[in-house]
């Protein structure tokens, strides 16, 4: 859905109301929320040690790098993928949509003059906003403690590109998972599909390691997939690994993928509702 369509369907006060209510809902379970937010940082520590051990054990070819990454860059990369994923990960989105289809809650969106995807997008934005507010402190602290892994701040243009790539990674993550959730219109149980997706996502988004490390055909395939924009791409942009024309292309492609998944989610919803109305309800 384009911004224009969204604005037409949801005037500003509606945006605000949905956001406000989603924010309030998010804040109901304080304990769970705080734990979920803070625990996100735990794997960070293990990764820093893991890469330390890898660099030490494997050794480097004398240049001090593995596949073009120094230990410093690797840790910096990993820290930055945490930021990417703070934007692109959509915990529970696909499974909730599938569940709502299965238990009939989806009816609500068929009888009320409201757009399911727009509504869910606003809800997700609210969730993210709350998360950023709460996680900003811990994130700042972690980055401050790890400041030696970075070579200072990138230039303004790179920062703008970084922010743009993050915003698009949020939209891509949202529409991709929403599309997956709506597969539930055809297969009531989608947990296995989601498991496979999470697995691919973990490896090929660059969450586990920088995907430009992958050689040959695999590297080409992975670099052609939309998953790289969910973790790798924003981090690589920040680190200055992608610049100039390559950066413009990358951002353009990321935007194109967002558009593809906006359309795909719309089409899936359209045909899904058709099927639901024909067979189920």
């Amino acid at each position: 859905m384009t911004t224009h369509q969204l604005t037409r369907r949801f005037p500003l006060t509606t945006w605000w109301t949905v956001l406000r209510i989603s924010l309030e809902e998010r804040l109901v379970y304080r304990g769970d929320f705080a734990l979920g937010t803070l625990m996100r940082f735990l794997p960070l520590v293990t990764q820093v040690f893991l890469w330390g051990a890898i660099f030490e054990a494997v050794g480097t070819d004398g240049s001090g790098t593995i596949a073009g990454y120094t230990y410093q860059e690797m840790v910096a990369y990993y820290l930055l993928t945490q930021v990417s994923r703070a934007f692109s990960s959509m915990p529970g989105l696909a499974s909730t949509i599938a569940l709502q289809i299965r238990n009939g809650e989806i009816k609500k969106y068929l009888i009320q003059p409201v757009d399911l995807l727009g509504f869910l997008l606003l809800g997700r934005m609210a969730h993210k906003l709350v998360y950023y507010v709460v996680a900003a402190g811990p994130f700042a602290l972690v980055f401050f403690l790890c400041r030696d892994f970075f070579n200072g701040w990138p230039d303004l243009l790179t920062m703008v590109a970084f922010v743009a790539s993050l915003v698009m990674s949020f939209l891509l993550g949202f529409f991709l998972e929403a599309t997956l959730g709506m597969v539930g219109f055809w297969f009531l149980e989608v947990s296995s599909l989601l498991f496979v997706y999470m697995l691919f996502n973990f490896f090929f988004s660059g969450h586990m390691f920088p995907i430009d490390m992958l050689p040959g055909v695999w590297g080409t395939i992975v670099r052609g997939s939309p998953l790289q924009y969910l973790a790798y791409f924003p981090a690589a942009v920040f680190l200055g690994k992608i610049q100039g024309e390559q950066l413009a292309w990358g951002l353009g492609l990321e935007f194109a993928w967002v558009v593809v998944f906006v359309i795909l989610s719309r089409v899936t919803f359209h045909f899904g509702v058709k099927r639901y109305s024909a067979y189920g309800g």
Partner: protein
Amino acid sequence: MAIIEIEGLAKSYRIYQKQEGLLASVRGLFHRTYRDVQAVRGIDLAVESGEFVAFLGPNGAGKTTTLKLLSGVINPTHGTARVMGHVPWRRENAYRRRFALVMGQKNQLWWDLPAQESFRLHQQIYAIPPDQFLRRRDELVDLLTVRHLLSQPVRELSMGERMKMELIAALLHSPEVLFLDEPTIGLDVVAQHNIQSFLRHYQQTSKMTVLFTSHYMKDVAALCRRVVIIAQGQIMYDGSLGGIIDRFSGHKMITLVFPGDSLPQGLSRFGEVVEEQAPKVKLRVDRNVIAESLAAILAQHTVQDVSVEDPPLEEVIAEMFSLANEQARSAQAGLEEVPSPHA
């Protein structure tokens, strides 16, 4: 002019049939057998604006399916329907702003938040002007006496309180047509009564058209002049509640009280003895011979007290349902019971 017009509306579902056992489950991975179930079989109905119509019928009769069709949640297999001039399953916003559907305890409220937050959201979704919203909300909240519960999370409300909040949420945008699916299901007697009173009062003042389904005869008796009985996806009766007995019951109940503690013999020749507890006897007697039977009884026996009544409505309807089920089963035998294989 009718506000709801239905012609030949039919809906069939395809339901997966699984045999018992693990082997059948494994076989189901490769080949599945489905059965077509006709939930609604070509019904015709016209409802005038401002009517309060009850849909009665046993479980699986097609009541809820009809409401789902009329609210546009599902598409029909055949037939047409127009509600306020709209075809429901086109799901146009212009239509969706003019009706509401409340399905039992299915939630349109946000579970973890107080109901007033959901009301605010409805205000936005239905674009209700702020002053109108506040007026409507206050009116409904006071009518249902739930003002003190507005700031309590929905999950901490009782079932009756939750139903009241669901009704408020559904009525905020002043729908012209309301579809209610078992609004009193699972509620205690007091809560049922409260909901009934509210619905009666609200419908009378707003002149809203209401179609509702219920299993509780008390709901129907309290609210509706018109009753539509559906069984096996077909309309079996459409008329007043009282008319059901005239049309479907061929009997009346005669209650006799005899002097002393013993009962006379041979009463069964006048009709079926339903209850026998000295000094009282209850007989079920054919409507056509009620006068003769009563005259004969009074001529032959000394009777202290006598009353003639219609059989209980529930009993008549239950008989009618089982008759309808039997008829439909025998009519459909050999047609739909044949499983249709689909890969």
